[in-house]
């Protein structure tokens, strides 16, 4: 017993060094899995408030660009207004209202919530965004995030007034995507090399891909609505050993200057994910 104490005293510094190292590695290991510990949430509020102040300062420099983006988006949305379409005179009138259910039996599945970006990294291997919108404003874990030009990421951590978004530029990020041309689906990942390019993996070699093809979100994703813009094909790598293409995708979202984004709420998210994760009883 005495020897043990002597040993601990002799190597006290080394042991405390090992302890701190293990602690750091364990925290890092847990970070990508659980984001719900109290401490993480409290730290989130603190760093969030710093990020807000800095973002207020920064947003003045980006006002022109933000205005341009919003104007472009407004123009695009105005073009979608029902008033712009001439319907053949069949005596029907199309009305779009904000009810959750309309008389034709359509059910609203996705709701878009605007949010301001107060923190953003793109130089690291694991990049996150901070948004100023939290549980108090209806944000939940797993919500999809899209910008005016293309998708941005997925919410991984929520506190009362802030949420942290795992950017597409994160080595663990995976989003289901497809080619707009022929709906061949694949997975969007990031190789950590260039923030302007993503990888679209596991696209079947049966797909007729060419440079410049549009890539959009697929129907298979639980959090992203289908047909949201992701980017365009910049290069095609065909591995001779497999039956799949790996495509290099130029993102339409400019991750360097994101100011405002939309959180997308899927009203049927829990239902869908529950069914997907529960193992089927049928063999």
């Amino acid at each position, binding site marked *: 017993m005495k020897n043990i104490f002597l040993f601990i005293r002799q190597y006290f510094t080394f042991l*405390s060094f090992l302890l*701190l*190292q293990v602690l*750091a590695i364990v925290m890092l290991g847990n970070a990508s899995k659980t984001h719900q510990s109290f401490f993480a949430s409290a730290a989130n509020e*603190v760093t969030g408030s710093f990020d807000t102040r800095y973002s207020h300062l920064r947003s003045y420099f980006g006002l022109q660009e933000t205005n341009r983006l919003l104007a472009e988006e407004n123009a695009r949305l105005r073009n979608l207004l029902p008033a712009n379409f001439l319907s053949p005179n069949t005596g029907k009138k199309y009305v779009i209202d904000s009810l959750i259910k309309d008389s034709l039996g359509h059910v609203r599945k996705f709701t878009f919530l605007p949010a301001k970006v107060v923190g953003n990294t793109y*130089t690291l*291997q694991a990049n996150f965004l901070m948004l100023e919108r939290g549980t108090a404003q209806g944000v939940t874990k797993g919500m999809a995030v899209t910008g005016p030009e293309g998708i941005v990421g997925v919410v991984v951590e929520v506190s009362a007034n802030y949420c*942290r978004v795992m950017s597409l530029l994160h080595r*663990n990020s995976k989003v289901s995507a497809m080619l707009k041309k022929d709906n061949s689906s694949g997975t969007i990942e990031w190789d950590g090399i260039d*923030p302007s390019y993503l990888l679209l993996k596991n696209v079947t070699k049966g797909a007729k891909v060419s440079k410049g093809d549009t890539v959009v979100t697929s129907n298979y994703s639980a959090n992203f609505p289908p047909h949201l813009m992701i980017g365009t094909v910049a290069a095609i790598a065909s591995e001779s050993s497999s039956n799949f293409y790996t495509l290099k995708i130029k993102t339409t979202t400019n991750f360097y200057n994101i100011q405002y984004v939309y959180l997308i709420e899927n009203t049927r998210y829990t239902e869908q994910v529950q069914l997907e994760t529960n193992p089927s009883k049928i063999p």
Partner: protein
Amino acid sequence: MSSLLKNIIRFVLFIVFQVFILNEVPPLHRFIVPYLYFLYILWLPFKLNRFALLVISFIFGLTLDYFTGTPGLHAAPCTLIAYLRPFLLNLLIPQETTEQSYVEPGPKSMGWAPYGLYIGILTFIHHFYLVLIEWLQFGNLIYFIGKVLGTTAISLLMIFIVELLFTRIGRYRSNTA
């Protein structure tokens, strides 16, 4: 100004500078990420005991981690260099003269050559370990080595500039302080 107060102010400044300025720099090249924050650890006073040094470095790394959203990622290399620091200092400086008359490591207290070696080795170890644990999941060797060397070079350049810009007065420890 007391040493404690000076180091608390430095703590805040290094974090703010790293988070709000260096992390915002658009990537110039895929090998280059500007890191300067760990200089805080290299500048801590000589007389700090080793356990305190470890704990301070851990907290410092963790503070940065909560800003970048990766708890533990920077804390681990910070504790590593804090652990190695006293060994290296023992090797590099003549015990009798320097440690007793100066407060903290610097080109004035150690001389440019030993100080450069001290900074260079610890910077390299820091980046090597950081990139290693950042990358446990993927990576290829050439990119790995390129990234470690590129990042180390840019850090050393910045540290050199910082040393030239902010000449710290090589203050002698006196009985009154």
